């Protein structure tokens, strides 16, 4: 049976006249990695802050770990871990002291804390660094210390708000592996990000745009919803010229976009016909190109497309 870990129902948050989060509803299963994807100001942090009890929703409610955030915020607090956008560590304290502090204010006894520290340090791969001063560590390691602090009391759900912001790509990858292991052990992970490539690590995602969820589902589902038709890609040294040439062709009735040296063409036509038409148009425009092929849409494509669709409505 599916066990629901987070269930938001028409959550809404207004700051004065401004609606930061507008009636969002979603469900997260136990042990899932659930991603919230959206541009700056979309309302991701505001949603997380409501779920963690830092903000009172203007209307709507959510069940977190089986308790209402409105009626039983204290029960909810015991069961969640939260890693804010700022990491919020004490830079003068060592790794051990930071973990001890956060575990301690959750009310864990000294004996439990003592046993737990090596455990979490192994989990987040901080072995042998326990006695380092946190402020002297690089960002990627601070991020792990913050995670260790958030999970020291073994919460059922962890909320991670842009955990990988400003962390270098290799450490980011390692971090996602740690998150994966966490979810394999049954912890629900609710994570926000605006790195499009990172959502591949999520089981399911929500796309957020100006306070609303405009699409929710697994990644293949969302890609499918955005692009029924395939995407054609070429590589060229003169992308602007190629862009102009393709835009002239009315029959495509689609969208051309530049991604560095790559051009993506999205069209309503079926693949073979579109490909022929594309090569003809480029030749006519005098554009030299290589690697014409059909590609999977990137999350960037998907996001842009869905936002466009949404705003067209």
């Amino acid at each position: 049976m599916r066990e629901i870990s987070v269930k938001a129902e028409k959550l809404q948050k207004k700051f004065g006249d401004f609606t930061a989060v507008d009636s969002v509803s979603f469900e997260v299963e136990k042990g899932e990695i659930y991603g919230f994807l959206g541009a700056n100001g979309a309302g991701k942090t505001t949603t997380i802050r409501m779920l963690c009890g830092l903000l009172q929703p203007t209307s709507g409610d959510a069940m977190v770990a089986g308790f209402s955030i409105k009626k039983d915020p204290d029960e909810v607090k015991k069961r969640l871990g939260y890693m804010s956008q700022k990491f919020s560590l004490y830079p003068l304290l060592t790794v051990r002291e930071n973990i001890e502090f956060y575990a301690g204010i959750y009310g864990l006894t000294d004996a439990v804390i003592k046993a737990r520290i090596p455990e979490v340090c192994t989990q987040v791969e901080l072995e042998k660094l326990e006695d380092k001063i946190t402020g002297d560590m690089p960002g990627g390691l601070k991020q792990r210390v913050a995670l260790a602090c958030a999970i020291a009391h073994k919460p059922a759900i962890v909320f991670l708000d842009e955990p990988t912001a400003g962390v270098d790509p290799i450490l980011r990858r390692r971090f996602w592996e740690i998150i994966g292991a966490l979810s394999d052990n049954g912890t629900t992970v609710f994570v926000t990000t605006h790195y499009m490539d990172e959502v591949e690590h999520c089981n399911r995602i929500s796309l957020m745009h100006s306070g609303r969820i405009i699409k929710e589902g697994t990644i293949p589902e969302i890609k499918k919803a955005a692009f029924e038709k395939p995407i054609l890609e070429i590589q060229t040294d003169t992308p602007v010229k190629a862009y102009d040439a393709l835009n002239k062709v009315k029959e495509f009735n689609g969208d051309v976009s530049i991604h560095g040296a790559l051009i993506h063409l999205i069209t309503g036509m079926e693949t073979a016909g579109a490909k022929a038409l594309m090569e003809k148009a480029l030749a006519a425009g005098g554009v030299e190109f290589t690697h014409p092929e059909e590609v999977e849409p990137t999350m960037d494509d998907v996001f842009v497309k869905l936002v466009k669709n949404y705003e067209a409505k």
Partner: protein
Amino acid sequence: MGTLKEFLVPVGHMMKKEFIEMRRSKLVIMLIIAPIIQAIVFGYVATTDITHVPTMICDEDSSSQSRALSDKFLNSEYFDIVDLTRNPQTIQGELGSNRAKVCIRIPNDFEKRIKRGETAVVQIIGDGTDSNSATQTMSRAQLIIMAFSNNIFADKITSMRSVVGTLPSVSMEERVWYNPELASANVMVPGVIGLILTIVTLVIMSLSIVREKESGNIEQMVVTPITPLQIIAGKVIPYIAIGLADIVLVVVVCGLIFKTPFVGSFLLLMVLSFLMIMVNLGMGILISTVSATQQQAMFSSIFIMMPNILLSGFMFPIKNMPVVLQWLTYLIPMRYYMVIIRGIFLKGLGFMELLPQSAALFVYGVIVFTAAIRAFRKTAG
């Protein structure tokens, strides 16, 4: 079940963290060394300006009586005679150029009047630009002149004894109560404790909470089951401890260096200082709830501290202030603490004598602290 232990364990972890931070950030040096330095500086500033005051004597009389009076000043360690003249025209120049701070002017009929049994007048002309030390210098000069006048009176009585028989005599003994040497260090040094307490508690407290707000640590705590009351307890207790420790330090240091007497009950000083600390910490928390940055908190703290220094009687006696300001001083918690601390230090006053001040501080503390907890609940709730 909310047992006491469940309440205290998180508080203990907060305190432990606070002490580790204090130690590693070297704040502890500031909290221990700075008060000692301040006490010493204030003590010296207070004592040096009242001895060896450059003084001119304008003796227009040049009689044996006037010379006798001049000698009294010459022999006093409080006055350094820089000029002895007969010409009153030079007074203005000497005082104006700051060569002398005070002038003792003996008029040319001084001896004549004494012999005739009339009142002889001596002028003391002080430099009012530094009114505090001027007042002290003038009262010192007054003491000398009064002693001189008493001697003349006593001589007269003795010479008349054969005629009128023994007279009941009232001997006047010069005595300034509570602070016999008139050493203002003795008044200042206890006052310094009040100042230091305010810095350590009000300023450092507000900065420390705002820093945690800025860094998001308060927010991080709010998502845990810890309550605002526990957070406040964990932040406040270490500073109460530091505040009380600073009092011990300053009392000991000043006792050693300035021989400041301590005649009252040390325990009473600690208990009543605790009230003052609570008022300050409450203010500190209030400031932290309305400040978004440490800079704002710093400005607000100074804004609160100024009246506490200026209107508390720490530097300027309250009874010399304009009436409106005198009324205002009742709103200043430090005013009550100054009475308490000087009373215990110099007069050995007990709890019953300090009851009005203690009650005022207590009420103040309850109001400020309740408001602080409420405000903190709102911002961190």
